[in-house]
């Protein structure tokens, strides 16, 4: 068997060479004979990507991650993750002779004495900010279009873990230069962990190798930042992408698009070319930002010293919501008793944000349980066609945004010339009341838009042309919507609230009642899609 195969291979190679004669053909053939890759290329190359700008956001995240890996590797060549004390002797005059850690000194050397070092630092940092922002926007797209529904629930969870890991990567990276800003950030984390009853103090001693700041933390964070976290992120990104291939891509409703097909361009050749080009565009945008705009000027912050704190000390944007939560907690929530201090001013944000994060992560399962929908969904919802989901999303976004904005309370106060207390109190109110307001506004807006869609499908667009009928009556001629457009307006699934049904033993469980209640909340107010009979009827008495 083996002999026949090996003897057959060269002859086919020769034949192929004679036929095309091209180097590409010969090279592909050489590789294919040794790896049998053609099957995979054929299958993957035919994978179809629908064309829509919002489907590119995940790619932005992926490409920024590639930029982060490239620039980060450059930085590791020169960074020293050590907290041993040195006297800075580089070319930045206002820090000459100042005592600092080797980490800080090497970061300054990267900035001022390594050719291209400052550019790479800024590329790395801007790309990191863009990475998390692109993930956030991608998640919003997936949420509001319902792309997390079966069969993609697990991929939502993987993506969400990636979001959390990206924040962890960002925070560990922010802490590495050991400048004043990063040290302040670590001090806040140290304080938060110490606020956890019983175990908190022990955990920070373990983390910092003794009392804060110690001499170990930079080295430890470095291991996490360049080894463990990136490895997990790369593995999860791989899984995330495999799932994208396995599930096929989702698509927006439209003529000829069903749950059984995907309409779009295949990866090879068109999409690969576009995607490859898009990588360089994203790279270019990051490069331009890094070239022209300073980010994290550690030379201003100086080396870490536990006594000073700068005005305007904030974390990078993606940790802002947590910082904001700490700023918004009202005073007087610390109690001494039961053999310790109970810092509810720290525990409330910790638990609150923890709950928020877990709710977002398991949302697909919650919604699936409430709707009881076990079908696969490859056609996306337009946000208006899932009013309750959209409203919950709007509430969540408002909650997050209020906490996020609160992290810049001092900057808001100085730049809009208002009082710090006023900003804090407004943000406190927004955090609590804002989500409710956003929920009702979003839900009513969705329902109104659905009604408008219904009207357009049934009666068409107002044309503005007034016609006088022979009988003297004036009417405005409505232009009927064309069939392609109509498809988009009527193609969504209609849910009705679940009925409570007794189970096999004839009982109605508490779970059942809760589910029915939630289902009623979800689907009580709804606008059904226009049916065929309704359209025919409307056309029958058409003016």
């Amino acid at each position: 068997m083996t002999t026949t195969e090996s003897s057959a291979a060269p002859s086919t190679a020769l034949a192929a060479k004679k036929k095309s004669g091209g180097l590409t053909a010969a090279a592909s053939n050489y590789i294919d004979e040794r790896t049998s890759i053609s099957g995979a290329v054929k299958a993957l190359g035919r994978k179809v990507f629908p064309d829509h700008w919002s489907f590119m956001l995940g790619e932005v995240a992926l490409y920024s991650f590639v930029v982060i890996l490239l620039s980060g590797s450059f930085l590791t060549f020169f960074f020293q993750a050590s907290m041993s004390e040195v006297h800075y002797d580089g070319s930045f005059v206002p820090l000459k002779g100042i005592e600092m850690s080797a980490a800080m000194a090497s970061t300054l050397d990267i900035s001022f004495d390594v050719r291209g070092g400052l550019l790479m630092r800024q590329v790395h940092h801007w790309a990191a900010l863009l990475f998390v922002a692109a993930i956030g926007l991608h998640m919003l797209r997936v949420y509001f279009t319902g792309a997390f529904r079966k069969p993609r629930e697990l991929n939502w969870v993987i993506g969400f873990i990636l979001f959390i890991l990206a924040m962890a990567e960002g925070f560990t990276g922010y802490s590495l230069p050991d400048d004043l800003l990063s040290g302040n950030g670590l001090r806040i984390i140290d304080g938060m962990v110490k606020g956890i009853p019983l175990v908190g103090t022990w955990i920070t001693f373990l983390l910092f190798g003794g009392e804060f700041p110690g001499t170990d933390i930079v080295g430890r964070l470095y291991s996490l930042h360049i080894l463990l976290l990136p490895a997990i992120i790369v593995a999860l990104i791989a899984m995330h992408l495999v799932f994208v291939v396995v599930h096929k891509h989702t698509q927006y409703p439209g003529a000829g698009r069903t749950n059984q097909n995907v309409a779009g361009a295949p990866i090879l050749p068109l999409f690969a070319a576009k995607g490859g080009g898009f990588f360089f565009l994203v790279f270019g945008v990051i490069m331009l930002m890094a070239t022209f705009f300073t980010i994290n000027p550690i030379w201003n912050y100086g080396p870490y010293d536990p006594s000073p704190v700068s005005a305007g000390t904030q974390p990078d944007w993606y940790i802002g919501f947590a910082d904001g939560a700490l700023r918004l907690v009202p005073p007087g929530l610390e109690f001494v008793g039961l053999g310790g201090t109970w810092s509810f001013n720290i525990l409330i944000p910790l638990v609150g944000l923890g709950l928020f994060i877990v709710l977002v992560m398991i949302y697909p399962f919650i919604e699936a349980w409430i709707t009881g929908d076990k079908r696969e969904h490859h056609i996306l919802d337009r946000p208006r066609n899932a009013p309750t989901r959209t409203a919950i999303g709007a509430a969540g976004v408002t909650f997050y945004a209020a906490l996020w904005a609160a992290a810049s309370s001092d900057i808001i106060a100085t730049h809009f010339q208002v009082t710090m207390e006023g900003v804090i109190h407004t943000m406190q109110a927004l955090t609590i009341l804002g989500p409710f307001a956003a929920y009702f506004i979003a839900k009513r807006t969705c329902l109104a838009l659905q009604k408008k869609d219904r009207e357009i499908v049934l009666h068409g667009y107002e044309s503005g042309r007034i016609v006088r009928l022979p009988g003297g009556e004036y009417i405005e001629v409505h232009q009927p919507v064309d069939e392609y457009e109509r498809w988009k307006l009527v193609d969504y699934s209609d849910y009705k609230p679940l009925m409570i049904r007794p189970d096999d033993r004839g009982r109605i469980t508490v779970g059942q009642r809760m589910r029915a209640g939630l289902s009623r909340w979800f689907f009580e107010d709804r606008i059904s899609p226009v049916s065929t009979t309704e359209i025919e009827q409307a056309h029958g008495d058409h003016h």
Partner: protein
Amino acid sequence: MPETKTSKPRTSRKAGRRHPLASVALIAIGLMFTGGAYAMFSTSTARAESDLSSQQTIDEGEKLFAANCATCHGLSAQGSGTGPSLIGVGAASVDFQVGTGRMPMQMNGPQARKKPVQFTAEQTRALVAYVASLAPGPGLPDASLLDAQGDAAAGGELFRVNCAMCHNVAGAGGALTEGKFAPALTGVTEAHIFEAMVTGPQNMPVFNDVNITPEGKRDIITYLKYLENNPSPGGFALGSLGPVSEGLFLWIFGLGAVVATTVWITAKSN
């Protein structure tokens, strides 16, 4: 076609003083001359020195004080319900408050704001002389401490430890409670920085010579002037406000540019 040919030389003949923009240029030159002359004149008056201890200057200051300051600070600077006593605040205090335009105060508020200076340098010196004559207090700093030629590194360290918690590490300013704020330190003269440290205006604490030695103050001024005169090595500084302005920039311009690109590359060609 022939019409355009004939019109061309006509336009070229309109060069020189008959050019349509000639009058505009003439006005601009005229304005520049008058402005320049005024600037030269006003700086030459600013340079005019007068002796702080001369009775004539003090008397002049007293008149100015009675006309502009006494409403709140009292006729003999003893203070009133609306303004503190100025006896013993010293020359440095008056030079800072009046020299930066904070006094006379525009309106009651969380703190006196910087605004266009209301007095000439000569008048300011007269006010300084008058208040300084009432009782001893912090004097005007010696010019040797204001040369910004000290140790920028030592100044930077002192600044981070003593000043940055309100003024921000880059001197970009910061918020305080109840609408008060620490102002940005760019564009503040060396003398005013020194006087602010010595006298603690508004909500600022006093940094006397024991807290920070005069040489230390000189180093701080050196550091601030270094920051002011050397633009950020990384490019535009985005207000030196730290991660908030960076995040805002990223979301609006960075992500905005990237999303615009996604729309562009997925747009259908028609």
